[in-house]
């Protein structure tokens, strides 16, 4: 009977085979069909450690180190592994409370429970020492070495800019950045980010179940090295920048100096400013908030690029150039000045008392309003054009060929366009074609709707000193190699005015300093040319403006100075420019009295601002 049951061996073998088959199907699913397990396996054992390169250094034009790096440490956390942490001790070491600890951990967990996030960024070397000893008590936490930006001199904060953690929008749009990476947020740090940042490296480490390091993954086959960022050679003259910032202390305004032959920025002073070392490391957030809420000084506002002023009488230089180009003004053209220029309805543009009549040189030297109102009229009312509008458009085009009314393209972000009004603007304001030269006559003396940034003013000075051309101003003269040239700024931009018309204007500017409105600012044994400006504005006292270049031939420096609500151009801006030129060309300043008067003046608080008029002979313009 039992023999008859021999077929049952097949049933039993069938059961064996079915189980084997089920296992193979399951294995096929787990090992081949789905990816989830291999991904989890990598998450289990592989730690991707980013190797952060040192950011590129920044030097000044004389080889002085301006911006460098210092070792710092980021405390990183992998939330999933943060268990049994000695929370009290950790909070004490980095100076936060328990709520903050929980908040940060949650933030990290929201990003990813099993990827690293920065828990506390940019810890200094000293604090790291304390932390390192106790790191074993904080599982899930580890330290990643980073670098901290440091500034040798507490100057030019706006120009350098600062770096900070890349935000979510950046991380999403640019695959280079991961959470916790740093990125240049402003200034050179931003505009040269891709050059300065270098190339990140990656180390893949293997860890065991207790997160202990077990060596490199496949002998480092997939590791990559970090490459340090490229160094930048700035055209900034550290001493000049520092001197300019001292002169501007207590004043709102800016100083921009350019080397005319190259367009290299020599200094880019905006005031009030702040110490760049304030926006470094983990103190950045707190300090940044303080700077943002400082509504009195507005220290984050870069006036050199972002403030727009009516140029005032400095614009008369442009009138003189465009007038000659348009064939309505000659060196010998003479106008009388009856103390002002009547614009009808009994109104007039006033002028100060001066000898009359004047030719072109004299008019620049004395800054006669009447003269340039007439020049402006003759340009706009030129019979060769069929309409005011056509003449205005021609005028506007020629004005803008000096780099006015649009961004120049400086390699520091934030530049403003400025404003040379469009004809459409006047159409809207006065009605279509219902405006004439007399309607917009204030443009002739640089007042009204016209707005120009200090950078553009400096560039205007540079263009005039070059007799009609300029290089786009830039702060970085060389990338990587000290003697190379920044390839972005080699192109020469030429103005619409024939070079032949510049010399007479330069003569006028020379007279401004020797015997004209700015004669109090002249420097012995140095011939420099300038033009004062006094910009009326609705915010109080006139802005004091001065543009200049020196020497008269083969200029080494072109400069613009704006001091807000300070008075006549000759009173404040001109002496500041003159001190700057002296500093740059002679390296030492001998006029201590003048220096003291400027440095002590504090327009923000109204201290030491009443200067003895007449003594130096500050002439209105």
């Amino acid at each position, binding site marked *: 009977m039992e023999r008859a049951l021999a077929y*049952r*061996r097949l049933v039993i*073998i069938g059961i064996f085979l079915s189980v*084997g088959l089920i296992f193979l199907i*399951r294995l096929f699913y787990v*090992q081949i069909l789905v990816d989830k*397990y291999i991904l*989890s396996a990598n998450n*289990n054992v592989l730690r991707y450690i980013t190797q952060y390169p040192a950011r590129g250094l920044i030097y000044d034009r004389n080889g002085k180190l301006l911006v460098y790096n210092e070792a710092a440490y980021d405390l990183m956390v992998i939330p999933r592994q943060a268990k049994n942490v000695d929370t009290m001790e950790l909070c004490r070491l980095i100076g936060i409370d328990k709520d903050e600890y929980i908040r940060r951990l949650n933030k990290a967990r929201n990003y990813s429970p099993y990827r690293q996030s920065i828990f506390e960024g940019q810890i200094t070397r000293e604090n790291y020492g304390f932390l390192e000893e106790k790191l074993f008590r904080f599982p899930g936490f580890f330290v990643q070495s980073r670098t901290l930006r440091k500034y040798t001199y507490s100057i030019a904060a706006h120009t350098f800019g600062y770096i900070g953690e890349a935000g979510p929008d950046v991380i999403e749009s640019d695959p280079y950045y991961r959470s916790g990476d740093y990125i240049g947020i402003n200034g050179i740090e931003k505009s040269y980010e891709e050059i300065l940042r270098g190339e990140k490296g990656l180390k893949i480490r293997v860890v065991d179940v207790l997160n202990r390091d077990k060596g490199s993954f496949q002998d480092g086959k997939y590791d990559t090295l970090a490459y340090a960022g490229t160094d930048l050679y700035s055209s900034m003259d550290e001493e000049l920048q520092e001197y300019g910032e001292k002169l501007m202390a207590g004043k709102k305004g800016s100083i921009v100096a350019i080397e005319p032959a190259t367009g290299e920025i020599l200094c880019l002073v905006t005031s009030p400013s702040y110490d760049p070392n304030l926006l470094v490391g983990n103190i950045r957030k707190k300090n940044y908030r303080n700077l943002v809420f400082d509504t009195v000084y507005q220290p984050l506002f870069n006036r050199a690029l972002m403030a727009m002023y009516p140029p005032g009488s400095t614009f008369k230089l442009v009138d003189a150039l465009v007038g000659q180009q348009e064939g309505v003004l000659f060196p010998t053209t003479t106008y009388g000045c009856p103390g002002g220029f009547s614009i009808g309805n009994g109104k007039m543009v006033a002028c100060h008392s001066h000898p009359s009549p004047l030719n072109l040189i004299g008019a620049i030297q004395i800054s006669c309003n009447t003269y340039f109102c007439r020049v402006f009229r003759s340009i706009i009312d030129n019979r060769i054009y069929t309409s005011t509008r056509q003449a205005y458009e021609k005028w506007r085009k020629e004005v803008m060929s000096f780099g006015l009314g649009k961004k120049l393209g400086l390699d520091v972000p934030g530049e403003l366009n400025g404003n040379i009004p469009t004809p459409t603007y006047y159409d809207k304001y006065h009605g279509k074609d219902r405006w004439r030269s007399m309607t917009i006559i204030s443009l002739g003396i640089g007042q009204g709707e016209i707005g120009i940034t200090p950078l553009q003013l400096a560039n205007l000075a540079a263009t005039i000193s070059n007799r009609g051309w300029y290089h786009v101003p830039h702060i970085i003269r060389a990338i990587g190699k000290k003697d190379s040239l920044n390839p972005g700024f080699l192109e020469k931009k030429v103005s619409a005015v024939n070079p032949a018309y510049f010399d007479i204007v330069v003569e006028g500017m020379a007279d401004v300093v020797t015997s004209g409105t700015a004669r109090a600012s002249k420097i012995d044994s140095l011939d420099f040319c300038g033009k004062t400006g006094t910009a009326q504005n609705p915010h109080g006292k006139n802005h004091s403006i001065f543009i200049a270049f020196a020497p008269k031939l083969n200029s080494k420096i072109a400069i613009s100075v704006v001091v807000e609500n300070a008075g006549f151009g000759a009173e404040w801006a001109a002496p500041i420019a003159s001190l700057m030129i002296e500093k740059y060309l002679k390296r030492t300043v001998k006029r201590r009295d003048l220096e003291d008067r400027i440095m002590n003046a504090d327009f923000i608080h109204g201290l030491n601002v009443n200067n003895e008029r007449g003594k130096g002979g500050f002439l209105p313009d």
Partner: protein
Amino acid sequence: MREEKGVFYRIDWIMVILYLALVLMGWLNIYAAVYNDSHQHITDMHQKYGKQMIFIIAALVLAVTIIIIEPKFFSQFAYFLYGFFLVMLIVVIFAGREISGSKSWFAIGGLGIQPAEFAKMATALALAKFLGSIDRNIKNPRQLFTAVMIIVLPALFILLEHDTGSALVFLCFVLVLYRAGLTGYVLLALVAMPVLGVLALIINKFILVAALLVPAVLIYLRTRRHFKHLIIIVSIFLASAGFVFSVHYTVYHILEPHQRQRINVLLGNNNDLKGAGYNVNQSLIAIGSGRFWGKGFLQGTQTKYNFVPEQSTDFIFCTVGEEHGFIGSFIVISLFLGLMIRVVLSADRQRSKFSRMYGYGVASLFFMHFSINVGMALGLLPVIGIPLPFFSYGGSSLWAFTILLFIFIKQDALRYELV
């Protein structure tokens, strides 16, 4: 002398080679699972793989001893061995050492001996002895009862040691009973019970019982509607209903919390990958990350860096899956299936009924260990800690399975002399 030469001549070398292959692979996998950079030599006696090597040498000595021993020894002493290990199972409850919840170990010198491992072998012998007697009829309820008691008694003692997994293994002897003539419905019931059990846990039990009514009515309508059929159908239905309710009660009121959790993990009711589900999840990660070709010998990261717990014993299959991939797993599974099928086919050619029944016992035990252990590693069964024959680290298990197999090889070699 002529006879002994004959024994080695007639040994089923295929079985021996399968055995040796599995033992060797097991040893290499233990090496891979425990491997770390500071103790690299596979014969290092302070490491598990070094010890396993000693266990293997001892196992080979045992194997040779069994081959040359008096042929009738095991059939004659079957009941004695069975009785001896039953006593040992009781003694270990009082004199044994407790290791991770189970009081199932004797500490002899530095060595831990698990009588339960040997009790399986002794039970296979005793059951074969009982079923091998002439005129034995399994359909006779009294004889069936005795056979079942032979199986249940050691299982009961092992349960008392809190070693649920090992006790569960004794269920495999149903296959032997089936081969001896037990009705095939028992197998059907054994398949139906886990299915019903799982359903009982994931579906509302009242709805499930109501749903069972449908096939009951349908089957009744298709039969000839004898009263006898009605009785049978009603009792099967009542039994199923009772089973459904008792499963629910057992899982939620009788099982220990960790066992309940393991069942919940399997059913997907518990996704706590850090807690109860950790083992199985890590096991699947290790196996799944092996992909088709595996990561290579000693290149497995999950097992080497201790992500998988119990990796050298209960979860040893992870090492195979991770380092040797689908292809390696396929080979190991094939070797096991080959050995089991070879044993079953050999069993059927035995002239001695004792040898035949014993052969089925051997195959069933291998099958049970293999399917529970690998099924657990693959997340198909709840976590039940029993060793994978020849692979899992440990002397008792290796020796017991070696003895188990080689007694059969010996019987098979002498099948023409034994009746």
